[in-house]
């Protein structure tokens, strides 16, 4: 195979004095080459052994090698759509959105706990403890007035919790069904609940 296209002669770089110079230069460009013998390729290829380069060197060469990329309209359209979709998804995920619900993934597993207390003649009962910073608001229990039993179900993280009941908004009562109690330092006892494993504990 002969080089198909030769770059233009460098008349601009080398002084060409006249037509005779130009004629000689053109003739050199058109000098016919000899055909190489057919056995040249065969004998070269038979003498070669595959290269045994280390893997990192091969990876480096592979990464550094140029590659031809052909783009046709038929290929460009789906590629463009895919790129636009990726951008749109990235914008949706990155941009702040106040309407989006604030979902918090809690690493600590929570378990359902049913608190119950039998109090005759009470008008309100709430559960307070370490899990709500001893604040009764939002933790009011529902009362069955006929049976005089008050109850509430809470989802609490596993671990140790201290708690008590607040009756009629002023009287702190410990849980008579609690397995453990802890002195609160003010002359009363807090009930102690320890949550472990998959099973909720009914107090």
């Amino acid at each position, binding site marked *: 195979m002969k080089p198909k296209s030769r770059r233009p002669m460098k008349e601009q770089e*080398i002084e060409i004095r006249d037509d005779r110079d130009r004629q*000689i230069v*053109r003739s050199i460009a*058109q000098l016919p080459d*000899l055909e*190489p013998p057919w*056995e040249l*390729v065969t004998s070269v*290829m038979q003498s070669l052994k595959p290269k045994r380069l280390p893997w990192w060197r091969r990876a480096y060469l592979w990464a550094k*090698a140029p590659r031809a990329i052909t783009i046709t309209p038929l290929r460009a359209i789906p590629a463009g759509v895919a790129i636009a979709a990726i951008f749109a998804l990235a914008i949706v995920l990155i941009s702040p959105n106040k309407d989006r619900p604030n979902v918090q993934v809690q690493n600590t597993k929570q378990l359902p706990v049913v608190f119950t207390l039998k109090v005759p003649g009470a008008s309100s009962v709430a559960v307070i403890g370490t899990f709500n910073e001893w604040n009764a608001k939002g933790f009011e229990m529902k009362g069955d007035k006929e049976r005089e039993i008050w109850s509430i179900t809470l989802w609490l993280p596993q671990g140790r919790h201290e708690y008590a009941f607040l009756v009629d908004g002023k009287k702190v009562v410990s849980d008579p069904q609690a397995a453990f109690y802890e002195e609160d330092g003010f002359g009363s006892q807090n009930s102690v609940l320890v949550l472990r494993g998959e099973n909720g504990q009914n107090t």
Partner: protein
Amino acid sequence: MMEELYAQQIIAAVLTGNVDDYRHLVLRYQRPIFNLMYRMTGSHEDALDLAQEIFIKAYEKLEHFKTGSRFFPWLYTIGMNHGRNFIRDHKMEKQCLVEMGQDESWVDRFSQQSQRAWSPLDVQRLREGLRQLPLDYREAMILCYHEGFSMKEIADALELSVSGAKMRVHRGLRKLRQLMDGENYETEVKKADERARDRNTG
């Protein structure tokens, strides 16, 4: 550009273990390398042996080829050095451009290919002139006007500076013309100088 990209892809494939792909490079460049060796040795058999050795040597050194540069000038440089070593080892005092052009069929082909028909005498003069040129001048001319190398590539292949390569081509052309035209050359040069002077003054 596409040709060079293709060559670089082949080189990457060869270096990652695909030895068979080297065949494409040999097929692509066997003609100029074989002809270079033929010009240097004047022997068909020596040119074949040397061209084989050059391609094998290039394969062995392929991992040292600088990615992004042109492969052919790199290969040509290996060829030039290999040919020089052969000439030195065999104490060949004079390299020649032989046989090529001695047969009538070559003369006819050359005349047909030339834009302006050359007489057999002109072909004979060009052949003889190139044969008599020193190796480095002849190769500078061939690289520049036949292979289309840039001055930087000629400089690398002949181990010269760029200005040295320009000078080599320029002087090669002057020497070749002197060899071809003999006594007429001096007359022609004087006429050309006079014409140039007239243009500048007029």
